[in-house]
């Protein structure tokens, strides 16, 4: 019954979504207020219906209802509770339902926080989102229902993929989808603006917080995924440029460009057309990512052969949404106009450069991701484009952008003065350069690449501090805390996010240059030394936990003769789905380094001998720390007072002064 209730709920949701997608938009075109007013209640009803459907799926999992195909393929009785919930998004059908759930959550949020928007705008935004929901509902109901029955029900389910039985699985997909799907709001704003023909600074101000919040979620989601891969794959990598990762990274790049472009549109009324295009791109790349991941065109053509309807459906949907919005763009954008003019040397130019670089990077990633598909389509067969391509293309594209990050925030809007910026940043430049040249020596080995990466990070950090100081100094209050409090949060958020980038670059540079690893065969009592650390192998113990057997190694770690800790990497063999055993590395985390031990295979030479991988990873946690700082920057910017909705008119008057200080 529960599963049928879920299906039914989705069918009703489809009807509601059709109403929400059609009537308010038509109403906005014809000036029919009653139809426009339908948008909010429809969006809320849709949210409730989808929540009911999602709850039905969760309950089916919790009750071990193996008569539901999806539950039978993704769960077992013995599966721990948290993974029974997370198994929701462990397969294709549930992932799609999660997509829809989050989309309807965002619609619900828009329906709540849109009181200050004109009626027509709300009608169009929720209408567009309703149409997207129609597409996903049809997709789920026609090709990918998680509520299909399997009669007679099997006694036991087939278990959630062991690789997914990890705390990472609980948090990573929802976060990522919150980001992906969150761009649908900015997209809907852009389409609504194109339909209505009014693309002004107010429009940008409304879109901005939604974009920032989606971007923050996406940043966190990608970061969690990377941290998860790091400890679970057993070889200490943190980014693999694989198609699924790229699928989440492309919307992030476009979204980052969009955030910066929105700043120009809001503050200066410039880049209007460009901003709209970026909003379309960010969401289109999210959809494309969904297509690539879900249709299986990239990883394996066969995965798809059993149900070609799915791929055709998503592609059709993709064509309608992306093709339709790009056609709308081609039709309406020429009337919008380009916005305010600006000089060659100005903050606008720097942000435009930033946008072009980010978009080129997204394009390069897209090309690298789809290249195998292009070749395949042209009859040239299956290949794999690896990190060499991405490293070669990505680093040079991003480097100028990172350099500009130091200068851009100091440049005036409209017309800036390069010599003046030069004078303000000469110390930041000199100090960062000299420190970066010397720092690698202190780390043990000079390397040009390390010096270069460190210089970029230090430069961004130093320039950001110069910027902060120039804003703090003239404030009429005393004390650092009071001065900081006097600055707008939007501005502090930007600086924080930029510092996050510096932290991230530091992590990437140092771990790339100074990491070391050893693959050794170890028997009980053997030791391996890495830098100042010695690892002594004390054997493996076996046991059983929840739904798997484990082998747990014990390594005594000492530094210069002093015992520091014991590290216990594990191998897990899941009982139900007898696949490859999964690896759980032991990581001793530190501010400046991680020690990482993973068990490999049992070595044939002796019953107690194992192949062991030991890694020393300097500053690796700075990679995720940097992402976290970036996301915190996003949240800070979001908390800026000017986004508070009950805004008094006096603040509106105060706004120009605020941007005047920003320019100063």
């Amino acid at each position, binding site marked *: 019954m529960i599963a049928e209730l879920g299906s039914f709920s989705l069918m009703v949701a489809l009807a509601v979504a059709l109403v929400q997608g059609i009537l308010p938009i038509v109403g906005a075109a014809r000036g029919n207020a009653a139809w426009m007013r339908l948008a909010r209640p429809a969006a809320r009803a849709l949210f409730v219906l989808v929540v009911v459907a999602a709850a039905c799926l969760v309950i089916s999992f919790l009750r071990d209802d193996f008569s539901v195909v999806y539950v039978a393929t993704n769960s077992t009785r013995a599966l721990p509770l948290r993974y029974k919930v997370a198994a929701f998004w462990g397969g294709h059908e549930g992932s799609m339902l999660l997509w829809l759930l989050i989309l309807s959550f965002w619609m619900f949020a828009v329906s709540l926080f849109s009181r200050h928007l004109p009626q027509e705008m709300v009608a169009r935004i929720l209408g567009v989102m309703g149409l997207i929901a129609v597409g996903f509902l049809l997709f789920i109901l026609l090709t990918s229902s998680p509520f299909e029955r399997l009669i007679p029900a099997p006694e036991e389910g087939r278990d959630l993929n062991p690789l997914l039985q990890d705390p990472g699985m609980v948090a990573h997909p929802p976060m990522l989808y919150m980001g992906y799907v969150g761009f649908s709001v900015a997209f809907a704003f852009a389409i609504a603006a194109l339909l209505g023909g009014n693309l002004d600074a107010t429009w940008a101000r409304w879109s901005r917080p939604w974009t920032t919040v989606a971007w923050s979620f996406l940043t966190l989601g990608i970061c969690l995924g990377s941290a998860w891969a790091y400890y679970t794959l057993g070889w200490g990598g943190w980014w693999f440029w694989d198609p699924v990762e790229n699928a989440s990274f492309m919307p992030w790049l476009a979204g980052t460009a969009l955030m910066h472009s929105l700043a120009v549109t809001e503050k200066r009324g410039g880049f209007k057309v460009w901003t709209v295009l970026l909003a379309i791109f960010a969401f289109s790349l999210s959809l494309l990512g969904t297509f690539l991941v879900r249709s299986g065109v990239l990883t394996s053509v066969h995965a798809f052969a059993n149900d070609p309807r799915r791929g055709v459906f998503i592609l059709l949907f993709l064509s309608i949404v992306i093709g339709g919005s790009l056609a709308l763009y081609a039709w309406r954008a020429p009337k919008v106009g380009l916005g305010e003019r600006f000089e060659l040397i100005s903050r606008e130019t720097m942000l435009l450069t930033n946008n072009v670089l980010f978009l080129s990077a997204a394009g390069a990633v897209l090309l690298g991701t789809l290249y195998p598909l*292009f070749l395949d389509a042209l009859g040239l067969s299956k*290949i*794999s484009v690896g990190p060499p391509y991405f490293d070669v293309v990505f680093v040079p594209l991003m480097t100028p952008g990172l350099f500009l990050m130091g200068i851009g925030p100091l440049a005036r809007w409209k017309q800036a003065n390069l010599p003046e910026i030069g004078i303000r940043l000469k110390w930041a430049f000199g100090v960062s350069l000299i420190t970066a040249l010397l720092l690698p020596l202190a780390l043990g080995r000079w390397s040009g690449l390390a010096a270069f990466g460190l210089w970029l990070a230090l430069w961004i950090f130093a320039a950001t501090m110069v910027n902060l100081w120039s804003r703090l100094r003239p404030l009429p209050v005393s004390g650092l805390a009071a001065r900081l409090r006097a600055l707008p949060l939007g501005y502090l958020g930007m600086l924080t996010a930029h510092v996050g980038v510096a932290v991230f670059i530091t992590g990437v540079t140092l771990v790339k240059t100074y990491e070391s690893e050893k693959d050794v065969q170890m028997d009980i009592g053997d030791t391996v030394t890495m830098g100042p650390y010695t690892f002594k192998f004390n054997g493996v113990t076996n046991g059983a936990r929840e739904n798997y057997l484990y082998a747990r190694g014990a390594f005594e770690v000492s530094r210069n003769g002093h015992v520091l800790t014991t590290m216990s990497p594990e191998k897990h063999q899941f009982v139900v789905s007898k696949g490859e055993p999964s690896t759980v590395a032991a990581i001793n985390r530190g501010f400046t380094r991680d020690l990482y031990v993973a068990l490999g295979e049992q070595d044939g030479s002796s019953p107690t001998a194992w192949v062991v991988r030991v890694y020393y990873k300097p500053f690796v946690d700075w990679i995720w720390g940097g992402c976290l700082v970036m996301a915190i920057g996003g949240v800070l910017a979001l908390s800026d007072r000017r986004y508070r909705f009950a805004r008094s008119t006096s603040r509106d008057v105060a706004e120009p002064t605020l941007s005047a200080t920003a320019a100063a």
Partner: protein
Amino acid sequence: MRYLRYLIPLAAFVVLTGFLMKGLWMDPHTVPSPLIDKPAPEFRLTQVADPGKSIGRDDMLGKVWLLNVWASWCVSCREEHPVLVEFAKTGMVPIYGLDYKDTRDEALKWLERLGNPYQASLFDPDGRVGIDYGVYGVPETYVIDRTGTIRYKQIGPITPEILHDKIVPLLRKLNA
């Protein structure tokens, strides 16, 4: 005319959709290589494990051998590798690797980690020999006979099925 540029994104998307559409219906079929039944291109490369030793095409004359193109950065190779390691244990044919556009360091680590099915791996950092062999991508595998003629080319990873149905029967024939 000046409105045309607003159509560029749409046009690009239409092209992309075409490819995606085609991608949906594609079968991963192997394309016959123009090199089949032609002499294997000449090469002389150093070994990955030992920069001091080199191997050339003519050193291999007189035996049937497999040339497997791989790289430490290649994801599909990772998938293929256990199949090769198992197959190497049968000792049916010597397997030589062509380490394509890779670094020695990474390649050695990779072999140490995942096992080494190769008699030796040839080091082709700039992919020049790969180009001569018409390598589209990695992995690829060539069966070369006693006279130095390419008899078969596998594009993409070798699966146990391909090994069993195509490569092993061919090797039996060539070795007979």
